[in-house]
């Protein structure tokens, strides 16, 4: 599973999942933290739809951590102040970069989590769709 999809699942899903996957790596390998979780900013570059040009919308607070496992440096970065999650994400990122055998069964676990995320999103969309207008033309 590619990084884009797995980071979305790990951030939008239960943070306990990221914790348990990172713990699995910690138990078998030596993890060195190169950068403790710290706050920083990400500047947001947006395309406007009038001229289709780019501009900066503002900055979002993030927590970033860097961890090394088996010679590979992983990065964990998440919106908001989430020190533990940033560390767990960094360990998982390093594990995937090192193609560690433990990561092989993770795809299935992440797919299951994705299913729950999709169900939640679907339920939310259904709630929102209750506010959709059903126009009727009036006879005047």
């Amino acid at each position, binding site marked *: 599973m590619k990084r884009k999809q797995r980071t979305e699942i790990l*951030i939008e899903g239960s943070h306990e999942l990221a914790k348990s996957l990172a713990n699995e790596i910690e138990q078998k390998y030596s993890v060195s933290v190169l950068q403790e979780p710290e706050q920083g900013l*990400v500047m947001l570059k947006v395309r406007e739809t009038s001229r289709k040009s780019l*501009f900066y919308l503002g*900055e979002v607070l993030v927590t970033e951590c860097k961890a090394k496992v088996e010679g590979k440096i992983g990065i964990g970065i998440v919106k908001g102040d989430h020190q533990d999650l940033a560390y767990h994400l960094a360990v998982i990122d390093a594990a995937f970069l090192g193609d560690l055998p433990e990561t092989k069964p993770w795809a299935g676990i992440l797919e299951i989590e994705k299913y729950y995320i999709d169900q939640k999103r679907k339920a939310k969309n259904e709630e929102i769709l209750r506010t959709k207008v059903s126009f009727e033309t009036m006879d005047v």
Partner: protein
Amino acid sequence: MGYVAVKGGTQAIEESIKRLKYERLHKEQVLETGQIEAGMRGLIDQVMSESSLYNEKLAALAIKQAEGNPEEAVFLLRAYRSTLPRKYCSNIIETGEMKVERRISASFKDIPGGQILGATTDYTHRLLDFNLMKETEESVSEWLSNYALENRTIEMLQHASEFVLPKVLDYLRKEGLIPPLENNDAEPDDVTRESLEFPSSRSQRLQILTRGETGAVTSLAYAVIRGYGALHPTVGELRVGNLPIYVGHPNEEGNDEDEYYIGDIKTTEAEMLMPFMAEKEKGKKELEFEIGYGLCFGQNETKAIAMGILDNCLEHPDNSFPSHNEEFVLLHIDSVESTGFISHLKMPHYVTFQSKLDSVRKTKAKAEEQEEVQAYE
């Protein structure tokens, strides 16, 4: 006349700061930041937008410290922001990817995907609800379970799937009513890194408008519609929803699938349609549309619409109207700059004022002297 340093107010200042704390605390109620975050969504969104820093928890803390005063809260957040390192710039955010929670058009009734009202005060009676004074945690829980129950019933009936909401502008572009455009990927300017110079770039204008003070942006846009401008806008599409944010690896060259998802942010986007008569070949004139663009943090619809109006004004400079003058608009809508300058008038100006007073006294004395001389002659 320059400024001179004076001293002697240290103790008074210390006591004044204590007095400020007393004003916040003397009713012996501790306002938790979680409560502000949960119940003051509008103020949180306004403060995040004007401070140009997206984080609800910090916004709630700033609001608490500022006792609900938005200008002070924005000042606190801007100051805090300046202490943090900028770690990344996001990959380009395309607003078509917004997870929509509300989407309406005032121009087209039957937009593809429909009009979705979402959460809005637009259709509420503006009557004070005194029941809120008696609201309890039990009554809140009861309301929430009833709401969830209603939605479960609907879920069984509808089985609605993911939203796929095409943009109204794309629809108009396909129809040929708005000319098609290619993406312009030129790197934007950043007003937080380089001072604004005139003439400004489009990216500078949009950045200043989106972080502008909500009231100032709204007032100037209102003036445009009342006649101090040359526009007749309509809301083409207004969207509120969450935009996903991705960043690339700092060292690796990878494809889109290798980027990091870091979370999403709630934004409001307004695409304003401005009709105008375009000159065609052989003196023919045709009605066409231009688009004014507004996008800001949070659910902040009035500001996004007003930004869209001012964006289009500034694309058409016209010194007959202050609202079409980029210096007038861009240099006066920033919360920290405007409130800071007005507020600084409270600071001691003894020397400046004394020198003016001296001038008045001297002028008066001279005039009296001349009168006396004339009387003697």
